[in-house]
């Protein structure tokens, strides 16, 4: 229950962070909130020769409203985003989804970008980023690039991030006024990773966006289900999303059960999002 020895680095700027990440490329891991990483280290499920602690780079701690998206810096804690007026105004689905992430004490320390970089297929935020067509900003020794959610998540705990790259920012597209949204999740206990979770945004132009976690090795957008949902066929949307899922069986749920839950939760999330959208239109 104690981590293996590691070398500890505390860069003071993002340039220093990238410098040490490239110096120790492949042997170094970024430590931000540590709420997913440290349990793995404590159990020695993983170990790294170096940990690069970015907690002393204050300019990575921001939540900014930009043209078309909400920018969340690498050090913005779940809790700050949850309580942020910008997030509530520009992308209210984000604080809503955050209610399902761990517990308040975990969210006080954990970061939004850390949850994304960790890329657990059962995690809420990667599904949300995927649903909305968001992206991440990666900075490495060869420069800065923006990766779309769908190209970033590659598999179970695997992303397109290179060993010398730092995820400096996550970009969540703003929800236009008059949108409806919902996050639905099935978990054993509140705060656990989802068995299945669904993010849904019903946009004013009539389109519907969906993101599913827990039903595939990466979070995914069930495109056919989105079309059916936009046409108001909720049951068909659920069925199509389930058909697009490829879950594994594990201790918590069989693949068959997960698929059934994808169907139910997609239906429920779409219904809830459409109801809210109507409520917004009336209000």
């Amino acid at each position, binding site marked *: 229950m*104690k981590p293996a020895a590691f070398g500890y*680095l505390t860069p003071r700027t993002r340039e220093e962070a990238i410098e*040490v990440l490239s110096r120790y490329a492949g042997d170094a891991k970024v430590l931000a909130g540590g709420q997913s990483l440290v349990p793995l280290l404590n159990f020695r499920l993983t170990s790294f020769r*170096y940990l690069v602690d970015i907690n002393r780079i204050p300019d990575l701690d921001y939540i900014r409203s930009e043209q078309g998206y909400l920018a969340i810096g690498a050090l913005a804690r779940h809790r700050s985003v949850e309580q942020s007026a910008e997030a509530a105004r520009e992308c209210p689905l984000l604080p809503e989804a955050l209610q399902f992430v761990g517990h308040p004490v975990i969210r006080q320390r954990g970061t939004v970008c850390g949850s994304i970089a960790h890329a657990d297929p059962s995690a809420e935020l990667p599904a949300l980023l995927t649903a909305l067509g968001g992206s991440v900003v990666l900075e490495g020794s060869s420069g800065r690039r923006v990766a779309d959610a769908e190209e970033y998540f590659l598999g179970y705990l695997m992303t397109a991030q290179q060993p010398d790259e730092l995820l400096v920012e996550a970009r969540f597209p703003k929800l236009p006024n008059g949108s409806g949204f919902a996050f639905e999740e099935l978990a054993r206990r509140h705060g656990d990773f989802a068995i299945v979770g669904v993010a849904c945004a019903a946009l004013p132009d009539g389109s519907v966006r969906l993101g599913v976690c827990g039903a595939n090795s990466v979070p995914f957008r069930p495109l056919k289900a989105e079309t059916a949902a936009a046409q108001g066929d909720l049951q068909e949307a659920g069925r199509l999303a389930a058909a697009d899922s490829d879950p594994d069986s594990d201790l918590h749920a069989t693949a068959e059960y997960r698929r059934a839950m994808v169907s139910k939760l997609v239906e429920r999330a779409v219904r809830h999002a459409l109801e809210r959208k109507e409520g917004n239109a009336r209000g």
Partner: protein
Amino acid sequence: MAEMRTGHLEDALFEAREIACTVNGKLYRAMAEPRRLLSDFIREDLDLKGTHVGCEHGVCGACTILFNGQPARSCLMFAVQADGAEIVTVEGLARSPQQLTRLQESFSQEHALQCGYCTPGMLISATALLSENPSPTDSEVRHAMAGQLCRCTGYEQIVRAVLAAADSDGKGGEGGNHA
């Protein structure tokens, strides 16, 4: 980069280093190797045994402390991260053993503990909740305390104790009940 490279040998990165932090108002200086968990540092190196260690992976909440004013799992942090930090552990809540906080008194009165293992984390978590939200609803208390496991009480007494120590009757808003 100058500051970072003054470590010279890479081995220095692995070695124990001196850290300074304030715990319960007192400044401590102690050596810690990077992998030393903050929970172990507090218990073993600072000899403050009030912070309990249950699961060591952030699930049980027994090791919760206030880190720069915010609740945090000390088993999910390294001691080296606490260099320069201000920490409050359960020992730092009461002014003296004779002068418990209102929350501690109400834990006693409401029978909010039995074996006491989870209690330090419960008290810290609830202290953080009440300082942010002095009049929580019953549901807000349950949400805030959801990450703290107790295997004795069944939680009802804990929720009651937190509400009794709050400026509220559990229905939210500004309430009387300053008993």
